């Protein structure tokens, strides 16, 4: 990549994102705009994938909402993500935890690392 492009992309990276990996349970503070008003919504779930790198990096967070599996993809460096709290560290043996989609109930748990 061109050095100028690289520099520009680097300048857009956020530094306030904590370290976390697939398998971790996180709480994402999402900025939502409703008409004129803006508020923060909380979205809690397991990180099942981190994709791409640099300013294009996204995370996929899966949660179970009233019995229905929900996955949301967040661009990590976007202003849509206000803040990320890491709640629990999970032990995952692979980078993409897509197998969780097939599992439900007690099986869809991830062991915590203390």
């Amino acid at each position, binding site marked *: 990549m061109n050095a*100028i*492009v690289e520099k*520009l*992309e680097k300048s857009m990276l956020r530094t306030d994102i904590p370290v976390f990996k697939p398998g971790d349970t996180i709480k994402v503070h999402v900025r939502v705009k409703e008409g004129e008003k803006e508020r923060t919504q909380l979205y809690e779930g397991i990180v099942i994938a981190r994709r791409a790198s640099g300013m*294009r990096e996204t995370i996929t967070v899966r949660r179970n909402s009233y019995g229905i599996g929900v996955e949301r993809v967040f661009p990590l460096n*976007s*202003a*849509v*993500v206000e803040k990320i709290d890491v709640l629990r560290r999970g032990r995952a043996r692979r980078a993409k935890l897509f197998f969780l989609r097939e599992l439900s109930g007690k099986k869809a748990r991830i062991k915590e690392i203390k």
Partner: protein
Amino acid sequence: MIEGIIGKKIGMTQILNEKGEALPITIIQAGPCVVVQKRVAEKDGYSCVQIGLVENRTVKGVTKAMKGHFEKHGITQPIRVLREMRIAQGGEVNEGAEFKVDFFEETKMVDVIGVTKGKGFQGVIKRHGFHGGRITHGSMFHRAPGSSGANTYPGEVKKGKKLPGHAGTARKTIKNLRVEKIIKEENLILVRGAVPGPNGGVVIVRKSDFK
């Protein structure tokens, strides 16, 4: 003031705005440009200025004739890229004047002129956007140009008929690209959307007349 300045396409990427949206942008290194010569109506038949792109590199292959031209107008460094630019209405420019990217500071929209990438000899689908025929279902008409006209009347293929041929390397103007950001230290202007030509290609960035 002049209408625009010369720049170099650096490449495309995305930027994230304060809403969190990713916008497609092209980075153009615009300027610094120096006014080499003023052309006047009395002598040249029309009035404009010749501007040159000042590059931060060793410039080779400038002919003696061109060196003489620069010397005559008091330009010390050799220049490879020269373009003519109209003077904006009611404006006044002097030889030796320098323009940098801050030229676009108050500008919302720009037009970008460049030479598109060469595509070689192309068929009618790529070159003119014909739809072509079906690939399957027994169709035997795929990418051919089709009929080139009627029979006895007019009895000829009309001039300007869209046919296969050389595509690309044409001067194209992309109008009304939004200026997303200006980085003065490196003379960069970030415009929304795509711009003709390869990375490293010379483009002209001018203020758009969009209101």
